[in-house]
């Protein structure tokens, strides 16, 4: 874990509301692992003080990138920043994905919206290729498709409005694929909570392991504030664990989707 003031190398619109932000952050880039995140402070925000968590999308040489969607105050200010401007980063943070081993289980990646960022880094670092299922509401919500193909991955696209790829939700082609054979396969997912919950259910039905990257509001990002917790099964019941520290990646069998009574 490091804290660095970094310079923006580029910050360009990808599609619609999505931007690719490249920062010069050599030490962070070197340490980054798939599924980890950076806690980013936009100093230009005046009355919104907290840092924002973003999955690490690429870590290449001296550069570290994130792929973000503009959804509120912080991301709106961020989208108006340009090369040479400064941001503060704490990272790499959190417990990431288990990178698939060569000759091991075939990875099936499930990505929704900005979840594609974390999935891309996992695909890039995985010696074992597999299938990536990317889903979004509209065509503009589909990111990184060509990049996944360039890595030699099989890409299956779904859009809810049918404007691109198969019409429907991302879990439909996943179920179809698992029906063809579930043995020796493992799921990895990052995206909206409803999607993660559906993936967990599918993993249970097909008896395949799954790792999920959970999304919770975070204040500190380093484990001190206890705002980011989710209920997790333990040997003797359950407890709240921190998404920023024990997560964001959890084994789907451990995640409780509701707080037990």
């Amino acid at each position, binding site marked *: *874990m*490091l*804290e660095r003031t970094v310079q923006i190398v580029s910050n360009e619109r990808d599609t619609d509301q999505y931007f690719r932000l490249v920062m010069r952050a050599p030490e962070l880039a070197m340490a980054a692992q798939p599924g980890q995140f950076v806690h980013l*402070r936009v100093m230009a925000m005046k*009355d*919104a*003080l*907290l*840092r924002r968590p973003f999955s690490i999308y690429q870590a290449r040489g001296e550069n570290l990138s994130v792929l973000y969607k503009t959804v509120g105050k912080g991301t709106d200010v961020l989208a108006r920043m340009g090369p040479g401007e400064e941001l*503060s980063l*704490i990272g790499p943070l959190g417990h990431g994905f288990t990178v698939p081993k060569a000759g091991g289980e075939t990875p099936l990646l499930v990505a929704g919206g900005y979840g594609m960022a974390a999935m891309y880094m996992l695909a890039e670092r995985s010696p074992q290729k597999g299938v990536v299922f990317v889903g979004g509401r509209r065509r503009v919500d589909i990111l990184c498709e060509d990049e996944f193909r360039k890595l030699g991955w099989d890409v299956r696209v779904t859009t809810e409005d049918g404007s691109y790829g198969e019409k429907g939700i991302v879990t439909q082609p996943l179920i179809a694929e698992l029906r063809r054979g579930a043995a020796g396969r493992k799921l990895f997912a990052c995206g909206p909570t409803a999607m993660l919950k559906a993936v967990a259910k599918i993993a249970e039905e097909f008896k395949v392991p799954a790792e999920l990257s959970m999304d*919770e*509001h975070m*204040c*500190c*990002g*380093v*484990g*001190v*504030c*206890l*705002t*980011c*917790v*989710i209920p997790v099964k333990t040997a003797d019941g359950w*407890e*709240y664990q921190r998404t920023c*520290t024990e997560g964001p990646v959890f084994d789907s069998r451990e995640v409780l989707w509701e*707080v037990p009574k």
Partner: protein
Amino acid sequence: MNLSVKLGSLTLQNPVMVASGTFGYGVEYAQLLDLNQFGAVVVKGIRLGPVRGNPTPRTAEVASGMLNAIGLQGPGVDGFIKKYWPFLSTLKVPTIINIWGTTVEEYAEVARRFDALGGVGALELNVSCPNIKEGGAQFGTDAKLLAGVVRACRKATKLPLITKLSPNVTSIAPYAQAAEAEGSDALAITNSYPAMAIDTETRRPKLANVTGGLTGPCIKPIAIKLVWEAAKAVKIPIIGMGGIQSAADAVEFLMAGATAVAVGTANFYEPQTVPQVIAGLREFMARHNIADVRELVGSVKVAK
């Protein structure tokens, strides 16, 4: 230049510490910071047994601040001693343990346990958490109950006692005086303010707990006034807190009457705040020709 101050029998190398619940158990930030530069490290509130805490969302960002309703999640005394004390006991600076209970007896028992542990710098009695149903704030908003908690803890330990007061009272003076009369060595002012935020799209409260505690720069002027009022009412030292993010903020609390200060919410967005405040305080003292930080305490000039 002297930066050292005293809270009862406890000497701090400088007056800048962290606020309970915003710095975990110290170890989490040890990779980013040299904790031995701090005045003291203050840990998250601990009661006798483990506490799960509230459902999520536990936080919401608001203009110049945030709401939280953690519900005092924690490992309990035994869990804390096993998991966190081995690290904390290696620090050269004092560790202050924030404690709470749902009964006077529980407060006293927790105090006894930490007294027996040895090596603890001081105990901070949290009688002001707004986010739990029993205990906490209920003791902080009734001067008689507050006196009872302080008295029981005073009997249970010789460790310096800090009473952390609730801001949610009409006048802070009677509470400050009650704690002083029962043998509290210092006061901590202030805890978070009870508050609420609503998501207008869904018509739901932003916190699962519905209400929470407001902290950050937005509460600073209110906290300054509380410190100023309490300082006029008691002789024991006050640890001022509420929205501190710079040395100027810290100096403002000292001038209002605080002997020491604590950095809370700012740790989340800028973990370097404590060292920055210490450096800035030195710079302020040099610029104003102040040899001893204690000269600043209560130095606000109010026309009579």
